[in-house]
């Protein structure tokens, strides 16, 4: 059974900025205002129609306490109910969950979620390291970088196949980002560059290379949610939120025991199993038409595919090697170019929901999947292995 809702909720407005490392032309409220204006225009609403604003980004990445106060100039929340949410990398996905819950509960009819980050203005690794337990771990951790996924894949499938799968995934993301006018990074990479990139791209940690890591972007995303009645009145193409799930885990990083008799709880796998089971989805790989995945690096992405879809053996690598995850393939992943393409962190997981919803509406733009999109999945990732997943539907018929 999906989790209980008093009423259905639909996405009726989406706006996002161009994501970039060069937004010195605007301050934080101004950047947010760009996304808010675009979402209001998309929904054909004004700020008067918004009952509640849900604001979120990474805590202390820009070293501003209660940024929702300063940002009120851009969010339009002055004199309105405004809730601030900050849950790390998942914050964008949590904004979506919270907006869905606030609307479904009957408390508000129309809720606006705003995710934001200006990574050029703060210190990302400083922010992430400050998440670690200050009593001991803060001193010895290395930000968000680890080569452990690369190590895992490499150990199981051999270095060459693992490296090639990771780079194939990376280049597919670059090709998708090239189609998305809002993407931060699109280099115009091609598959014949795989060997070259494996050789020349600087290593960050272990086999994790610079080209495989996500960007650090400035950007904002705004999504407007409405109850079923309002959504049908306001929008011709509301996108319905079917269900969402959040799975947290202990914050400790001690997850590298590498002993099969003591499996580590993997939140992606756990969350996906619960979500699909309670919604009666037996074959998620066939059910979904698109998946917007939070992919911080190509190594993690190829490893996680197996967890999300409960794939056996090397099925996940074959999906990548056969380019089934490209636009036009069996299950297109991140037509937007994903997190590797654009990563304004506080907005990133909300962009996953927004991009998935745009695919369902059929008006994503040059990166629209050519075949009909009726069922979409979005994921968020953060903290130390936390997961948020969101299911979107075109029709209210489940």
């Amino acid at each position, binding site marked *: 059974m999906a989790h209980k809702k008093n009423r259905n909720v639909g996405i009726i407005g989406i706006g996002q900025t161009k994501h*970039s*490392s*060069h937004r*010195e*032309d605007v301050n934080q409220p101004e950047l947010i205002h760009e996304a808010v204006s675009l979402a209001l225009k998309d929904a054909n609403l004004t700020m008067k129609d918004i009952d509640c604003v849900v604001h979120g980004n990474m805590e202390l990445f820009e*070293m501003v306490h209660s940024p929702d106060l300063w940002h009120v100039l851009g969010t339009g929340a002055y004199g309105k109910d405004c809730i601030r949410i900050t849950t790390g990398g998942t914050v964008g996905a949590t904004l979506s969950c919270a907006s869905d819950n606030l609307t479904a509960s009957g408390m508000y009819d129309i809720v606006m979620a705003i995710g934001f980050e200006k990574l050029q203005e703060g*210190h990302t*690794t*400083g922010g992430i*390291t*400050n998440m670690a337990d*200050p*009593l*001991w*771990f*803060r*001193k*010895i*951790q*290395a*930000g968000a*970088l*680890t*080569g*452990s996924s690369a*190590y895992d894949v490499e*150990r199981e499938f051999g270095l060459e196949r693992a490296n090639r799968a990771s780079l194939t995934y990376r280049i597919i993301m670059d090709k998708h980002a090239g189609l998305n006018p809002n993407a*931060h*990074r*699109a*280099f*115009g990479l091609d598959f014949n560059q795989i060997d070259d990139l494996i050789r020349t791209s*600087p*290593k*960050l*940690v*272990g086999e994790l290379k*610079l*080209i495989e890591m996500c960007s650090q972007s400035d950007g904002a995303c705004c999504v407007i949610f409405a109850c079923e009645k309002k959504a049908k009145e306001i929008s011709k193409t509301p996108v319905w939120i079917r269900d969402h799930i959040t799975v947290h885990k*202990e914050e*400790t*990083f*001690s*997850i*590298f*025991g*590498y*002993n*099969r*008799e*003591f499996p*580590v709880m993997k939140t992606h796998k756990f969350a996906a199993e619960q979500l699909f089971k309670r919604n009666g989805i037996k074959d998620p790989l066939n059910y979904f038409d698109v998946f917007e995945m939070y992919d911080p690096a190509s190594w993690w992405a190829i490893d996680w595919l197996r967890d999300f879809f409960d794939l056996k053996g090397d099925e996940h690598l074959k999906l990548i090697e056969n380019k089934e995850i490209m636009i036009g393939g069996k299950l297109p992943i991140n037509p937007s170019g994903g997190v590797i393409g654009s990563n304004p962190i506080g907005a990133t997981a909300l962009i996953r929901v927004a991009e998935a919803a745009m695919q369902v509406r059929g008006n994503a733009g040059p990166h629209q999947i050519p075949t009909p999109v009726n069922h979409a999945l979005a994921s968020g990732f953060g903290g130390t292995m936390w997961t948020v997943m969101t299911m979107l539907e075109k029709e209210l018929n489940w």
Partner: protein
Amino acid sequence: MAEYWDIKVEDIFNSMQERFRPDGAKDVDAVFGYDILDEGKWKLTVKNNEMKLSKTDDLSGCISTMKADGETFVGVNTGKVDATNAFMSGKVKVEGDMGAFGKTGKLFRKYIIAKKEMTVKEYLADMFATIVPRFKAKEAEGLDAAFAFDLGGPQGGKWTVFIKDKVCTVTTEIEGSPTVTLEFNDAKDYVDFILGKIDAQSILAAGKAAAKGDINMMASKWPILFEKYKDPMGGNVQEQELLVLKKTIAVNQKFSTGPIMGKFLKGLKDKKIYANKCPKCGRLQLPPREVCAECRVRAADFLEVGPKGEVRYMDVVFYAMPDPLTGVARETPYGSINILLDGCKGNETLPHFIRKDQIEKIKSGWNEKKGTRVRPVWEENRIGDIWDIKYFEIDE
């Protein structure tokens, strides 16, 4: 020379001296090369907080050389092109010492795109060329008039604007007998008047201009018949230089350990490593935590483990990450290891660092394979901190 966004490659180089920031040149003593495709080569010498630029054919002796095409070079310097993207995709290449080249980023203020000046002649041409598009036909019902302009000075000229049958035409001479003729001694005054820089009264009073014929027709009808002239230079204001304010925060913090973590840290002082045990599932927690997160019960039983153990996983970190606690970049590469201390099992590993010169020798372990054995190297003066262990080293 090609122009990009109205800027030549030469403009960027020619303005370098003016944009030079001695502050950013502290500790820089180097020669940098620029090789711009189809445009030429430049050599930039920076020494003693001063710079010298020369166009050259010979870039030998440069510590690093930037190669790009003209469009990319202008784009990166004016913020029209993302520098990181240009570099990653190979549009900008740096040969030689990459680290040294990074310092050039601080040497110059950003290039501000200056708008060009328009001459009086260009303004007059533009003003009369836009007369017809600015004409509001519906305001000209029943009007039959000719407005003549006789504007003197070296850049001046003559124009007549005819309005008849709700149609407006312009000629570049004065024909027939105009309804009203406006004469300016200097065409520049007319341009300034239209741009709103001076007012008509003062020009007329000073005898710099005169109107002949039906002055009322000019005064009352002209402003209604035509939309106001818009200055294509927008007042010729330079594009605003956008400022970025830089702040550095340093704060003192203190954190209470509580009794459980306190016991672990106190143990380090005595060269002992303590884990605690969940009374329900029996797993060890290292470092000790107040409760077992899985069983949600208090865990107060302690057990000494290690201090030797086996490496189960090592991250070799190449990226020079600045330590957020000190701002100093950690020396790379370094090995971040997860150790299964003797007495622990499964995932009960402790993260720490390996001795720098031993990274190459470390083997990670799993079910079928033992990892490298390691032992802690203790600090002489221990204060109850994770860094009381300097690092681990191979135990053989």
